């Protein structure tokens, strides 16, 4: 009797839990669903129910050069920041995972710091720093593309360090030693043994780095410079003015791009193992 009721209450609990989990997932996905719906409205005003459906807002994106220019700049900055971030971040991660030296923990924390410092603080401090450097060196650093990219590299580095060190966590060093005992040079050992091990970490770092840079808003607001805009800034500024199917269509394209990047990356690394 008692055991029966416990089994029942367990089943009930299980249902309640699944229901609650579904509701929470729905809540998180709700805004994406509605912005997608709005992109296909026929009328311009976002009122429900829609008068009908149309694809014309996707065509009207091209009439607004801010979105296209913003997209191009975001793409250029994100790709550059991702590549440079990997080039200097992956060796640093290898060093942290493989070498034992005094101050290793401190260096690890330092490299993860850009992740902890809020975007707004990051943006203001780098802005102020650029002001000072521009005054000292008389080089046009303030509001330059180089300054913008440097800021983005900064936020890519901690993801490289974190994901690549994680991918080396369970790695057995004796495999490398075995390779060298069998006559492989250190370089050859790296490319034939170490690199294949950390490849999932590098692919994940590339995805996270790209996404973090592409979507960055707060820091970029301070660094973008006069007369330029990135896609997230263009979307924010448009939304501060109004919400209509055009901006919804832009949003849908961004959702599609991110989803595409995730699916492509997922073919190389199971994302559920990395996150």
């Amino acid at each position, binding site marked *: 009797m008692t055991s029966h009721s416990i089994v029942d*209450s*367990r089943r*009930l609990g299980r249902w309640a839990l*699944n229901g*609650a*989990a579904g509701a*929470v*997932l729905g*809540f*998180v*996905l709700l*805004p*994406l669903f*509605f*912005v997608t719906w*709005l992109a296909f409205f026929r009328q311009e005003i*976002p009122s*429900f129910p829609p008068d009908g459906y149309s694809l014309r807002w996707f065509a009207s994106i091209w009439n607004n050069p801010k979105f296209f220019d913003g997209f191009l700049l975001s793409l250029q900055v994100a790709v550059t920041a991702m590549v440079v971030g990997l080039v200097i*971040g992956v*060796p*640093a991660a290898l060093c*942290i995972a493989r*070498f034992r*030296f005094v101050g290793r923990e401190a*260096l690890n924390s*330092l*490299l993860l*710091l*850009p992740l902890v*410092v*809020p*975007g*707004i*603080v990051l943006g*203001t*401090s*780098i802005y*102020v*720093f650029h002001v*000072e450097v521009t005054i000292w060196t008389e080089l046009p650093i303030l509001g330059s593309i180089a300054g913008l990219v440097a800021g983005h590299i*900064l936020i890519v*580095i901690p993801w490289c360090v974190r994901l690549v060190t994680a991918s080396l966590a369970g790695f057995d060093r004796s495999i490398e030693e075995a390779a060298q005992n069998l006559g492989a040079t250190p370089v050859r050992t790296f490319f034939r043994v170490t690199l294949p091990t950390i490849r999932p970490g590098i692919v994940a770092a590339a995805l996270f780095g790209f996404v973090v840079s592409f*979507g960055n*808003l*707060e820091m970029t*607001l*301070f660094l973008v410079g006069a007369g330029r805009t990135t896609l*997230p800034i263009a*979307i*924010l500024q448009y*939304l501060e003015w109004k*919400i209509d199917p055009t901006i*919804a269509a832009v*949003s849908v394209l*961004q959702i599609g791009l*991110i989803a595409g990047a*995730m699916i492509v990356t997922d073919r190389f690394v199971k*994302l*559920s193992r990395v*996150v």
Partner: protein
Amino acid sequence: MTASATAGTLQSLAAREMRGGRLSTAGFLIGPATIFVTVGLLFPILFLFRYSLNDFKPGVLMIDAFTIKQYVLFFTDPYFTAAFYRTLRVAVVVTAICVVLAFPLAYVIARTQSRWKHLLIMLVVLPLFVGNAVRAAGWMTLFGNKGFLNVSLQWLGLIDEPLRIMFTETAVIVGILAVNLPYVVLTLQSVIEGIDRAVEEAAFSLGAGPMTMFRRVLLPLALPGFVAGGIFCFILTMNAYATPVLLGGPQFVMMGPLVYIQFAIKSNWPLGSAVAFILMAATLVLTAAANLVVQRRYRR
């Protein structure tokens, strides 16, 4: 004798050389990133602090000085203190709700073994990757006077006049909640995954109901996950930008937007720097305090 001594010296020499070589390799590997983060982040934060001690005169803009005037102004002017307490309030409310809501989803993902698990994680990560502004756009579609929510409620006959949801604290809290939930879910999920399922089964077989099992077994074990997720959520809310700007409107000023207003619109760099510094300090101090309290309470 001599031979073995020589061999010993040679060995130690070789070891030293190798250690030196390894150290230089290590430096070569980690050097660039270290220099980059030091110059790109640590120096700028020092400069930010220095700027916050400068003086400001409208028209003249920034004046070199060494004064705590900006900090005093911040904590005495009701406009700024209101923004500060508003931000704190929203952060506490969002964190409290977020931790509760994240649990069921985190648990289900952690305990699912089929290919659904993969899909679930992708569905949680996708909104995280799509920008905050895009998600705010979704909420704007829902919350407007003729938005989905008001039209549905009117159609159901529950309200006569559209509710004003846009540009309220509720809208901001809902928006930030949805932004932060994926982070907390993923943090919590990884901790729950590390808890042996047999522990739960043991509690059940000893006669505990689901609630008792949760309270007495799962909650204490998953506490580090709750704490880490909660802290993450608190930091994110304190520093939120796009969501309060878009869903709260120009009247609902939180700390993040306040920094931007002072910098970009008022051109008051010293005050803007002070606000940014206060924001960073408040976030760090409160998270450290929360961490300490929780650790002390549950050590026994």
